[in-house]
């Protein structure tokens, strides 16, 4: 009986929390660049949004709730969201902060921590800095590379949403 009450309470709490209905634990998995590429390849057949971020990046932190919100709206339209933290994996306090942040944000998607030297990581990812967002089509081809590399044209949330709209034939209306 007590178990049922507890389960009901947990369910009620989850229903109240936006996006918690999937009851998916929020984890942060440390992966090498190659392993990350393999995980991405395994998502072929879906449109994939990769958000490259770190706890030391204020624009990334400020944008993250919007990513969670987009995930909520697009997840039933064949879109998978993936976060990739480039926090220093040797800085345990930063890694723990990243984990807690993802939990607070209820980021119930695939969350990875890149196990690479940051200079090499940026080289391999072909970015100058973060925030950066990549979008892959259903065939696993990178179709959009949204960065802040050009002062004349830094990306915004609207660019992410526009890219999603162009890749998905069943995308919900833009909000």
């Amino acid at each position, binding site marked *: 009986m007590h178990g049922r009450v507890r389960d009901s309470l947990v369910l009620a709490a989850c229903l109240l929390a936006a996006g918690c209905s999937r009851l998916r634990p929020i984890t942060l998995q440390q992966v090498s660049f190659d392993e990350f590429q393999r995980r991405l390849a395994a998502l072929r057949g879906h449109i994939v949004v990769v958000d490259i971020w770190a706890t030391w990046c204020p624009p990334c932190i400020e944008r993250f709730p919007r990513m969670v919100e987009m995930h909520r709206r697009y997840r039933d339209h064949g879109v998978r969201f993936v976060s990739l933290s480039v926090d220093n994996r040797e800085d345990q306090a*930063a890694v723990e902060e990243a984990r807690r942040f993802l939990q607070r944000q209820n980021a119930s998607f695939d969350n990875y921590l890149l196990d690479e*030297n940051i200079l090499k990581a*940026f080289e391999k990812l072909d970015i100058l*800095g973060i925030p950066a967002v990549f979008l892959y089509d259903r065939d696993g081809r990178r179709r959009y590379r949204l960065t*802040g590399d050009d*002062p*004349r044209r*830094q990306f915004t949330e609207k660019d992410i949403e526009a890219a999603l709209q162009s890749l998905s034939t069943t995308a919900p209306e833009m909000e």
Partner: protein
Amino acid sequence: MTRKRWWGPLGLVWLAGALLWAGKYNTTVDIGRKAPGFTKLPGTDGKTWSLADFQEDVVVLVFLANHCPWVRGGDKDLLQLVNEFRGKSVRVVGLAVNLRPDDTMPAMKEHAAKIGYNFLYLHDPTQETGRQYGATRTPEFFVLNKERKIVYMGLLHNSPAQMMRDGAVHHANGEPTQHYVRDAVRAALAGKPAAVAETRAQGCTVEYATR
């Protein structure tokens, strides 16, 4: 030809021009290009400064942001760079172009005083200097020679440092072994080109206001 039809060819010309001027990493300027000027930017010293005010043979511009752990981590190395060229005809100038309250005055003054910045630290509230230099990272360095041409841009050295949560400084590649800015300054003082002229800057992204 209608006005609309001009956009295609004009766009191509613009793109070709942009690519011509862009560096390997920098999307806006390239090595050998005349350094964009700046005029009457307020400094943490209470005065205003223009690029034309500096009479030294070599000017090092570094884009900074107080909040950024890559700036905080590299502060000590930056002070050391300034000290290294003390007595030489070299001027180091810090530039802040972010608009976040923690990256503008008076936070800049506080940070400069706390760290003991031994160089001018200027703010450009229009962000135009950053845009013209194509500066997208903090810290990001530009070395200008006597003719005020850009002779180096990118990292200070090959091991950028990040300040960790506990305040410790972590160099990404251990002890630096290639001091790009120092070597570029020495080369410029000798009237020679830098052996390494451009590197991929590492740090926080400069946030430009949408226009």
